[in-house]
C-alpha cells in the first residue's frame, strides 16, 4: 500500500541503558509498569540520550507534574533541564519555540486537555509553521504533552479530547499511545523527531500496568497496529478507546462475531495501510473516539476509507463518538463516552446491512 508508512520512516538507534529510575545495578530488559511510569522512563531515557532535551511546564519540577509523569526528573537532571514555568500556556509554547530555534528539544507539559487553548495560537500559528516559513532552514523538535480524555470523573476542562483541532493543522504530527509499552517508545521517538508533535496521553490509562520492553522498538512513530485479529468487523480507535474496543471484541466473540481491532497510534498522519487491508477482509468498519464526532478524526477516516475501499465495503463506515455537546458533568459521563456496548450497537448496525 503506497500510503503505508511502515517501511519508509527511518528508525532511530536506541541508547544502551534504558532503565527505569529505581532499577537495580543489573539493567532490566522489561518491567511491568503503568503508563505514567513508562512515559517517565521514556522521558528520562530521552534526557540521557541528548543533553538538548528539556522538560518545561507547570508543576513538573519537584512535584513531578499533577500526574507525576515527570517525577524524579528534576532531582536527577536539575532545574536547567526541568523547568517549572510561570502559569501561562502560551508562554510555555512560545518560549519553547525560541528554545528550539536555539537548538534545544523542549518537551512541554500542558497540565490538562482543556488548558491547551491559551497556547493554541502559538501551537497552530507559530510552532506548526516555523519550518515552512523559514523555507526549511530550521527544525522545530518540540513535543507538547497533553493528558486527555474522560473516564476520570473530574470537573469541567479536565476530560476533553481536543485532538482534531491539532490534526487539522498542517505542520503538526499528532499521536496517542494506548498502552504502557507504546507510551515508552513513542515518547522517545517523538522527542527524537525534528517535527513538532502533539503527544496526547490518555489519562484514564495512566495507572493500569502493562509490560514495557526497554530498548529500541524498531517501529516508526506513525505506524498503526492490528492489536486483535478478526474477520467480521474492523474497529479502529486510539488512546483509551483501544481498551474499550478490545472489551467490545471480547463480548462480540462470545456471540460468535470475530472483530479486528486497530490501534491508530498516530492521528496525523494516519497510517491507512493496516486499516485498508483489514477493511478489504471484513467489509465492515466502525471508528470509535471519545471526541465529538462532528468534524473529527473518525469523520476523516470514514471519508478516506470510503474513497479508497468503496468496493470492499459492505456497509457504510459508522462512527461512535462523544456527543456534540460540551463534555458533561462527570455524574453522567458514562452516557457520553463510547462504551463497549455502544460500540457493539454500531457493530450490529453495520452487520445488519
Amino acid at each position: 500500500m503506497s500510503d503505508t508508512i511502515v517501511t519508509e520512516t527511518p528508525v532511530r538507534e536506541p541508547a544502551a541503558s534504558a532503565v527505569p529510575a529505581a532499577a537495580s545495578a543489573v539493567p532490566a530488559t522489561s518491567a511491568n509498569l503503568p503508563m505514567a511510569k513508562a512515559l517517565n522512563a521514556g522521558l528520562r531515557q530521552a534526557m540521557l540520550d541528548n543533553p538538548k532535551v528539556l522538560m518545561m511546564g507547570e508543576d513538573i519540577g519537584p512535584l513531578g507534574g499533577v500526574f507525576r509523569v515527570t517525577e524524579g526528573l528534576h532531582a536527577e537532571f536539575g532545574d536547567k533541564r526541568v523547568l517549572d514555568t510561570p502559569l501561562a500556556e502560551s508562554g510555555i509554547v512560545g518560549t519553547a519555540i525560541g528554545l528550539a530555534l536555539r537548538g534545544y528539544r523542549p518537551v512541554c507539559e500542558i497540565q490538562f486537555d482543556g488548558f491547551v487553548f491559551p497556547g493554541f495560537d502559538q501551537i497552530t500559528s507559530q510552532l506548526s509553521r516555523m519550518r515552512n516559513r523559514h523555507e526549511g532552514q530550521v527544525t522545530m523538535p518540540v513535543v507538547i504533552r497533553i493528558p486527555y480524555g474522560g473516564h476520570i470523573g473530574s470537573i469541567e476542562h479536565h476530560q476533553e479530547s481536543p485532538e482534531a483541532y491539532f490534526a487539522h493543522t498542517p505542520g503538526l504530527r499528532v499521536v496517542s499511545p494506548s498502552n504502557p509499552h507504546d507510551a515508552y517508545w513513542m515518547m522517545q521517538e517523538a522527542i527524537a523527531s525534528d517535527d513538532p508533535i502533539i503527544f496526547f496521553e490518555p489519562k484514564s490509562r495512566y495507572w493500569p500496568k502493562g509490560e514495557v520492553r526497554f530498548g529500541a522498538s524498531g517501529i516508526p512513530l506513525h505506524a498503526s497496529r492490528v492489536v486483535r485479529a478478526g474477520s467480521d468487523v474492523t474497529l479502529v480507535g486510539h488512546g483509551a478507546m483501544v481498551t474499550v474496543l478490545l472489551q467490545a471484541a471480547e463480548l462480540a466473540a462470545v456471540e460468535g462475531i470475530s472483530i479486528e481491532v486497530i490501534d491508530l497510534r498516530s492521528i496525523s498522519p494516519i497510517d491507512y495501510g493496516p486499516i485498508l487491508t483489514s477493511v478489504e477482509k471484513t467489509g465492515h468498519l466502525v471508528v470509535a473516539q471519545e471526541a465529538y464526532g462532528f468534524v473529527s478524526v473518525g469523520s476523516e477516516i470514514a471519508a478516506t476509507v470510503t474513497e479508497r475501499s468503496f468496493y470492499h465495503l459492505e456497509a457504510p463506515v459508522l462512527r461512535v463518538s462523544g456527543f456534540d455537546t460540551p463534555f458533561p458533568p462527570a455524574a453522567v459521563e458514562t452516557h457520553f463516552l463510547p462504551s463497549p456496548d455502544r460500540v457493539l450497537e454500531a457493530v450490529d448496525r453495520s452487520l445488519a446491512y
Partner: protein
Amino acid sequence: MAARENDSPLVQVLSTSGLVEPSEAAAEFMPYLDRLTEDDLRRFYRDMVVVRRFDKEAANLQRQGQLALWVPSHGQEAAQVGSAYATRPQDHVFPSYREHVVGMIRGLDLVDILRMLRGVTLGGWTPEDHGNFHLYTLVLASQTLHATGYAMGMQLDGTTATGNPETDEAVIVYYGDGASSQGDANEALVFAASYQTPQVFFLQNNHWAISVPVTRQSRTPLYLRAGGFGMPGTQVDGNDVLASYAVTAKHLDDARAGKGPALIEAMTYRVGAHTTADDPTKYRDPEELAAWVAKDPIVRFRAYLQGLGVEQDFLDAVDEEAEDHAADVRRRALEIRSPERSVIFDNVYAEPHPLIQEQKAWLDRYEASFEGGDA
C-alpha cells in the same frame, strides 16, 4: 510626548532643533555616546535617509501592483537606527514587521523583505546568515515569546553573563503599543523577569494601532508597566537617534552582563499609514500629524550634524545614495521570480509525511494531464 519638565522621565539628548540639550533623565545614558565616532554619526544619518527613501519606493511598488502590501516605517527611523546600532554582532534580533532599517543594519538586503510582501515566500531570509535578524512575525507579539525562549537558551548555553562583553550574547525584541496589549507580550515579560533573561524589550510607541490610539491600549505610560513585571523601564525620545542608541546600549550591556531584562518605550510616531491598505485621514487629527512631523528624526539629526560641521557634500551624497538604492531596489524587486509550486509542500515537515507526499504527487499528475502541462 511628555513635556520637557524637570521631573520628566523622557530620555532625550537632542532638542527638536538638533541641539545637544540632554534631559535630566538622560544623564546616566550620556557616557554611552562616547563610544560613537563621527563615522558612526554619519552612518546613522545615512541609514535613516536611505530607509526613508526605500520606504517611499516600496509604497510606490505596492501602488503599482508589484507588492501585495507595504508597511511603512516613516517617522520611526531614529528609534530603529539608534537601537540597531546598539546591538553587537553576537546578539539576536526579533523584529515585528516594520523594522526594515534594523534588518538593513544587521546585514539584510531590503529586497528580501519585499520578497515576502510580493508573495513569493512566507519568510524571506535565513536569520543566521543575516546578522541573526529573525523573520518578521505577523501575529502581533508572538515573537516576544520566541525572543524570550531564545534568550533562555543563551543562558542555558552559558554564552551570556560570562563577563566578556565581546562575546556575551543578548536578545532584543521589537514590538509596539498595539502589541503591548496582547497576552503574549505580557507572558513574555513574565517569563523574562522570572528567568532573568538577557533581553531588551524595545517597544516603539508610534501612537496608533491602525486606527486606535495608544490611549485605548493603556491608561499609564507603557514604560511604567516594566516595574510591575520587576524590571527596569526607560522612556526615550524615539525620534532622537542618539538617545535611542544610548538607552539601548546601556540596557543591552546590562543584559549581556547578567543583570536581566529591561523594557524601553521609544516615543515616536507612525507618520504614514499602518499599511498601504489603511487610510489615516479617516481617524487622525491633521494637527497631531503636523506636530510630529515638526519633530522629524532626520531633520533633527541633520541639523545636529550641520552643527558639528558636517559638510553639505556629505548630505548631498547621502541623498544621491538613497536615490540610487531605491532605484536598485525597484529594479531588483521587479526581477523577483515566483517559486516553483513544490514550495507548497516541501518544507511543511522535516521528515517524510505520507499525506503531503501524496498530495504533491497528485498535483504533479494533475498539472501534467493538461496539454503542454509540465510533469
